[in-house]
């Protein structure tokens, strides 16, 4: 049952992803991207990472997709749907991307990955919160500084200079 669900979700996500990179109309591509993000949130639930599934929906769909749609709208005037979608190297890229997939898949299926017998912590979200102010305190602070810097940087870059 779980496997069937996985296959269906994978088909949905991958075909949506293919639409993202091939659709001529960018706005449509952005909507396909949202579908991909939902699919991935579904995988997170399958993986028992419910918290991250919520984060995925909030950040990717709530924030990043919106941002991308904004960017598309703001540059609308020059987004001529008649223009070619791809640059001149797309054929080669397609071949190489397929090759990369084959090679990656071959590598991952051949390695005997170790498995664990540990069980999920009782309250994973609580544990995660504690970890962020404990073990991962420094990376966590660095990440927050990074976000602030990125935000300030984005404002300065995009600001109208007059």
């Amino acid at each position, binding site marked *: 049952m779980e496997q069937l669900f996985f296959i269906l979700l994978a088909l949905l996500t991958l075909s949506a992803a293919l639409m993202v990179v091939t659709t001529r109309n960018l706005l449509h591509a*952005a909507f396909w991207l949202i579908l991909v993000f939902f699919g991935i949130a579904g995988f997170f639930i399958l993986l028992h990472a419910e918290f991250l599934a919520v984060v995925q929906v909030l950040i990717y769909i709530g924030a990043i997709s919106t941002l991308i749609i904004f960017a598309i709208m703001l540059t609308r005037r020059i987004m001529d749907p008649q223009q070619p979608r791809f640059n001149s190297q797309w054929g080669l*890229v397609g071949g190489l991307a397929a090759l990369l997939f084959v090679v990656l898949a071959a590598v991952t299926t051949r390695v005997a990955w170790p498995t664990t017998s540990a069980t999920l912590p009782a309250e994973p979200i609580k544990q995660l919160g504690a970890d962020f102010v404990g073990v991962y305190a420094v990376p966590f602070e660095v990440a927050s500084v990074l976000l602030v810097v990125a935000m300030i940087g984005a404002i300065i870059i995009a600001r109208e200079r007059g």
Partner: protein
Amino acid sequence: MVPLTWYLVLAAALFAIGMFGVLARKNAVAVLMGVELMLNAVNINLLAFWRYTALGELVGHAFAVFVITVAAAEAAVGVALFIAVYRQRDTVNVEELDAMKG
């Protein structure tokens, strides 16, 4: 239960598709979407490995959260850059952005 390799193959496929988007699309916003796909593929990998090999500690979660943070920062800066470039060069076609040309 779904085997680990299924997730890995799925992530590989998503990564390759994203890669294709990054390398083959003309529009800078479309390139950014490709990058998002690639980052998501990485997140699937991180969580799958966590689920199957390190369930006891939440290291996979923590990494995924950091990846999402970086993705958010990257998207914000990326979009700001498009707007700046668009304003200056009146284009978001990556083929025309070749200031690095030697």
